[in-house]
């Protein structure tokens, strides 16, 4: 009996000590000495472990950029692989500091979390076997379609077939690997997800050349990192790490010339690299925060090319992800 009461006392103690998980994420990260970043379970180009277990990709480089800004060391990141279905709960409960996992920015998600920006403008498409001789998504009436559950993709699929009065059968799987395996096994005529992911999954297929990505883009999928509600300072840090990388590209500052840019007389570059003003300190970081990011990780263009662009196996063209000065829509507010 005494023991039961003691256990209950402990339980009460714990119950009351769970304080609301709000502000102070930046302090928590600094105290812990590492950033905990939610990523995918393996999506080449975005977040993917190599054969030695080291993570690479566009979304991974974003985590590394935050770590570089905070610790001056891009390696101080712990990666938590999450399925599309289970990605939000760990962020909600504070198990991860930031979710950088090709996640579409939507209203209902923004109402519960804070999106920090768009690091890849994507859209949903279909991949089919060439043998089916299908040239357009509008010819998919009556098809079986494999999709990953818990995604905006699943909802867009329903909308698209409904609005075009086409019948379809949906088979929804929990992870990307199972979805692709089922498509490869012939369970579905088509596999649908964001086009960038289609390129990436196509690489994994046994005979990549037997498959073709259809031209239709059926949705807007702005992908970006997100953080919890209720911590404005942390949101600003994550948001400005993204803007810093875009501003660096716009001003021509990249990983090779960042040391020379410290001597620059251009006021915009001086503010960027911290030789003028205290902009990093306003965010709770150091003056040289952008130098740290660019030196260790690179500017947005470098990161894009290395992971998904022409310098990578995926070879996706920049498209609308070009800077606004070059005909794209990637744009960042000024540092001042």
């Amino acid at each position, binding site marked *: 009996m005494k023991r039961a*009461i003691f256990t209950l006392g402990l339980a009460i103690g714990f119950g009351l000590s769970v304080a609301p998980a709000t502000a102070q994420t930046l302090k928590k990260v600094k105290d812990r000495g590492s950033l905990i970043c939610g990523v995918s379970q393996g999506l080449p180009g975005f977040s993917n472990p190599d054969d030695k277990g080291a993570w690479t990709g566009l979304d991974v480089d974003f985590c590394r950029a935050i770590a570089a800004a905070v610790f001056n060391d891009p390696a101080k990141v712990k990666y938590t692989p999450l399925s599309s*279905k*289970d990605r939000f709960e760990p962020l909600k409960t504070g198990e991860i500091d930031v979710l950088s996992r090709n996640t579409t920015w939507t209203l209902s998600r923004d109402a519960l979390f804070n999106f920090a920006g768009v690091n890849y403008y994507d859209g949903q498409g279909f991949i089919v076997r060439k043998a089916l001789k299908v040239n357009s998504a509008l010819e998919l009436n009556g098809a079986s379609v494999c999709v990953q559950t818990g995604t905006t993709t699943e909802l867009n699929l329903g909308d698209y077939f409904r609005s075009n009065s086409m019948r379809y059968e949906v088979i*929804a*799987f929990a992870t990307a690997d199972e979805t692709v395996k089922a498509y490869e096994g012939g369970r579905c005529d088509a596999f649908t997800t964001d086009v960038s992911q289609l390129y990436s999954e196509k690489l994994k297929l046994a005979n990549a050349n037997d498959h073709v990505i259809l031209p239709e883009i059926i949705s807007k999928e702005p992908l970006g990192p997100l953080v919890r509600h209720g911590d404005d300072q942390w949101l600003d840090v994550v948001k400005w790490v993204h803007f810093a990388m875009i501003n660096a590209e716009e001003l021509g500052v990249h990983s090779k010339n960042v040391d020379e840019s410290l001597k620059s007389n251009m006021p915009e570059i001086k503010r960027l690299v911290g030789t003028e003003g205290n902009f990093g300190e306003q965010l709770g970081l150091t003056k040289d925060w952008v130098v740290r990011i660019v030196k260790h990780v690179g500017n947005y263009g470098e990161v894009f090319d290395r992971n998904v662009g022409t310098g990578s196996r995926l070879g996706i063209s920049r498209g609308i992800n070009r800077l606004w000065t070059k005909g794209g829509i990637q744009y960042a507010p000024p540092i001042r």
Partner: protein
Amino acid sequence: MKEALTGGPPRVAVHNNPKFRSAFYQIVVLAVVLACAYAFAVNASANLRAQGFASGFGFLGNTAGFGINQTLIDYSETDSYGRVFVVGLLNTLLVAIIGCVLATVLGFIIGIARLSPNWLIARLGGVYVETIRNLPLLFQILFWYLAVLGAMPGPRNSIGLGLQPILAGIGDGAAALGLPGADAFRSLAAWIGPPDVYLNNRGVILPRPLLGDGFEWVAIAFGLAVLLAIVLRIWARQRLDATGKTFPTGWAAFALIVGLPGVVLLALGVPIGFEHPQLRGFNFVGGVRLIPELVALLFALVTYTAAFIAEVVRAGIQAVPRGQSEASQALGLKRGLALRLIIVPQALRVIIPPLTNQYLNLTKNSSLAVAIGYPDLFAVFAGTTLNQTHQAIEIIAITMAVYLAISLITSILMNWYNARSNRRFER
């Protein structure tokens, strides 16, 4: 001294009264537990509200927006999350009920096979049990799903099951070998027409029965036959008690239940038509389709659970002392009667409680369906719906309550059956 002996029980202070003390401590523990639960609830809801999460069950009325590939009731993307819940629940119950029935049948067959005096049959049973029950279930589900999918052709090369493909095959073979009669087989095949059952990597496609006018009379006849069979059984039991004469109740009931609706069906001119499946575009249109996810899940759950049930059955039969069967032989009972009246009732006492466990396991294991895209309750409700609505606490609570309710109902039914089969020993 005398007074103390006659004055009734000694008076004890209230706080030393064992009854009062035990009640007091129980009330205190209960209060503490409730206070804890309340603190947790308040804390969770405050935290969630601070982050902008609504709580409550209002989300059940919102539009779901996603499709589901097997629905036992009408469902479309415009229906609500509440309907998604019902669809998922029915899919879970479908797997659980069919799975329990088939696993019981297979388990009994294998359990009895393990006791067979035939060396080969007993060993085969042993190998089955030891292999199947020692491999992880998730692995088996994925194996059956991917193995079956890999072996099946696409819809355009479906395997037709019926007489026509066989006859056509024989005809082609005969023609190739230069044997006579090839044309006869081919024309016979053409006369029979295309088959109605197809097998491909989209599942098993069957013709859909269309019930015509007057079919309700067949249903009424069926109900009547079941009623008559029950009356017959009561009468046979009374006659047995009174005169000791036996009556073949089982066969008579079977004849009634099959015969009566059959006669009505024939009298009405068989008012059943069939909607034949046809290949159109990517898939077959029309007919009924068993999706491969359902087939693979059932296959894995049934074979896996049957291995455990086989052991339960074997243990139950071996628990009946040998003297019982010897005694029934000495009484002159035939082998079948001895099994039915002496051995099995005693074995059931041992079999039913662990059998209940296996039914509960099968039902809960069916939630592994999410791995192969079968839309059960766990996949569409605790998975997709949770992810779309972010109502984690409500949805997990509902899902837990549902699995708990299914398990409790199964337990109650099995306990009732156990008590009923034990009663005959108390008479």
